[in-house]
């Protein structure tokens, strides 16, 4: 009986486009499958191996960042992996020609003609990896105090912070949610500059597939965007059952979905990916771009919501009768990475992020600037004001994102 589940269930969706005033209404027919499953002549056309590989590399680096015997050279070699080098525990990753560093701040829309920012951003990630080894690991068995790196309790967990209260592993991981995952999805693969590059549209119209593959170039680009979100889910065709499959965007779509104020957002993102892909099959590019706009809005919101959430949580923790520094610093460190990620968000139907790099840089300076010891000195009003300023750029409210 279970086999029934694998039968392609097609839903025929009728779109009536009414936005033309000249009475030029058209009816579009798109076969929207129930799951992210697409075939051509009986062959699967969905492929995002490269994205899965990079997410797996990321998960290994996240672990290595908290293993104090790791060297800075090892971390940087993992991040900038060269094919064949023995950087990972998983042999398949060592054999891969992919790495994370070359896809950091690497989108066509934002960085193809902005290599100076690209270099600055990559330098940040390189520096955070090195700093973990140079500043944190030597003080692994030291109690952190203002101005001194070391360990600090956060509930039953122990966190490892620098002299100003920041966890570099959180900066790196949460920062890459923006600089790699979101940037690649929103500003690269869902960009018309990529989807419609060269003869992609004509090829897709004519069902001309990529040599040796069953997909068209445009289909593949869209799937690569999809793979950065769902590449590690157990059943990537129906991914929302196990959100949290990676340490990057997937996990935080799950977290935001878990907030009643945003319930449904995970399905909205998934449905937009699926319908957009179905629209490519149906050669309906307007529908495709409408779905891309929804994805841009919703994924940008995930980053905005988490930025606000962590700042507000930290404010509450520091405002208690007994301030919980460990838990608050952990939240702010995650928040720091999400705020960093804001520069890679994308306002739908524009070429702009919700916050520019200059604005993000200024926010992060503010966050660390209330006293000589960074977060140990942070004012509650700094956290509140920053959360308010971030929420103001989005459609969600401060209150919705705070709990």
């Amino acid at each position, binding site marked *: 009986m279970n086999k029934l589940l694998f039968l392609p269930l097609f839903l025929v969706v009728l779109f009536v486009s009414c936005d033309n005033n000249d009475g030029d209404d058209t009816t579009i027919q798109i076969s929207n499958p129930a799951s992210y499953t697409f075939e051509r002549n009986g062959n699967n056309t969905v492929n995002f191996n490269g994205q899965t590989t990079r997410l797996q590399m990321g998960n290994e680096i996240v672990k290595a960042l908290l293993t104090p015997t790791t060297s800075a050279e090892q971390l940087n070699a993992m991040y900038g992996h060269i094919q064949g080098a023995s950087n990972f525990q998983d042999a398949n990753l060592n054999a891969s020609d992919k790495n994370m560093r070359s896809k950091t701040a690497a989108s066509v829309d934002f960085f193809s003609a902005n290599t100076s920012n690209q270099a600055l951003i990559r330098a940040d990630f390189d520096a955070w990896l090195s700093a973990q080894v140079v500043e944190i690991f030597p003080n*692994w*068995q030291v*109690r952190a105090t203002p101005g001194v790196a070391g*360990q*600090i*309790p956060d*509930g*039953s967990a*122990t966190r490892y912070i620098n002299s100003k209260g920041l966890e570099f592993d959180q900066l790196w991981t949460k920062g890459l949610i923006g600089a790699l995952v979101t940037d690649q999805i929103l500003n690269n693969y869902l960009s018309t500059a990529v989807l419609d590059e060269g003869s992609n549209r004509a090829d897709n119209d004519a069902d001309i597939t990529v040599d040796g593959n069953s997909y068209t170039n445009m289909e593949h680009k869209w799937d690569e965007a999809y793979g950065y979100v769902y590449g590690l889910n157990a059943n990537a065709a129906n991914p929302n059952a196990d959100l949290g499959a990676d*340490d990057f965007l997937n*996990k935080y779509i799950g*977290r935001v979905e878990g907030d009643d104020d945003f319930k449904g957002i995970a399905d909205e993102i998934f449905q937009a990916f699926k319908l957009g892909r179905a629209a490519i099959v149906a050669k309906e590019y307007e529908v495709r771009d409408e779905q891309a706009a929804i994805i841009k809005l919703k994924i940008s919101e995930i980053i905005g919501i988490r930025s606000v959430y962590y700042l507000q949580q930290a404010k509450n923790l520091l405002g208690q*009768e*007994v301030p919980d520094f*460990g838990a608050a610093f952990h*939240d702010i460190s*995650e928040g720091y990475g999400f705020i960093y990620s804001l520069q890679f968000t994308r306002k739908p139907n524009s070429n702009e992020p919700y916050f520019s790099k200059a604005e993000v840089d200024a926010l992060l300076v503010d966050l660390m600037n209330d006293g000589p010891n960074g977060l140990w000195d942070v004012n509650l009003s700094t956290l509140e004001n920053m959360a308010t300023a971030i929420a103001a750029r989005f459609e969600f409210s401060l209150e919705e994102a705070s*709990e």
Partner: protein
Amino acid sequence: MKKYIFGVVFIALIWACTSENEEVAVDPDTTVSFERAAMLSNWADNIIIPSYDAFAVEITALNTAYTSFKSDATITNLQNFRKSWLSAYKMWQRVSMFEIGPAESVGLRLNMNIYPTDTQKIDGLMTSGTYDLTLSSNRNVKGFPALDYFINGLGVDDDAIIAKFKDENKQARFGYIDAVLANMTTLTDNVVAAWKSSYRNVFVSNNGASATASVDRFVNDYIFYYEKFLRAGKMGIPLGVFTGTPIPKNVEAYYEGQISNELFLEGLDATQDFFNGKYFGVDQTGESLATYLDALNSVKNGEDLNKIINAQFNAARTAVSALGSFRSEIENNTPPSAMFLAYDEVQKIVPLLKVDMVSAMSISIDFVDADGD
């Protein structure tokens, strides 16, 4: 002394249909008065501080029994050490819930009782001879669970355990226990001293009704303890309620093997006694969550909420008392159905406290499930 009036029901009649004037009428018959200050004094003076005092006495006795064992590692001295450990561990169950103020500052609960303890790490640290048990990363290698390992887990019987305290590593072993006990003693003494020197008045005088008032905060801490540490920590997690896989190694006092129920029941008694405002060690009660509910005239389905909650505490006690040791229930039954049924009775108290009681008292719950990363 009707200074503090809480849970007041206002019947507001607003006459503003045709004019700009507004009038608000309060029906005095629905006014309930309950003195939160009196409840806080009862908590601090008759329950919390006497309980901490008794715990400090237990810790002293534990040190004494250990000193005898260290000077002469006989079976009798091991058994006495073990007896003092159990007695102190039971008293711990009566203070573990008070994680507010001084205990919250030092994180007393997670310093005293993280289990399972990491025995591999203990052996490594012990051999290395260099360790700082005050570091948060070492909380899983000290406290009562680490002592459980040393006095119950080093061998199959007392002779085998004693042999470990006579072999070539005995100095390292004694040195490590010295450090564990010193850490437990310092933490306890500091918390007790802080309650007596200043926190008692801070706690009692913060007698308002707001998210930062003592009653609101402590009721949250109390329910948090019941839900996360008593219900989940002692039963739910080893049962595999949240993961689907039972983990017998996660029962409290795993190496002793027989007393996890006893420790649980002590904790259950402590939470029920606290609910009823029962003085520590004296058969007398004062203002409490129970009398507060009565003053509010809280009923659920036509019955007094106070009575419902006490009846459920009693049902939970009856169910858990009928079980074999948690370790054997989990290890010898697949699935451990009897313990699951008992767990269900323990669980039923959670919504009564966390929903019915707090809504009657207009207290909001301030804890959510942690982020988990």
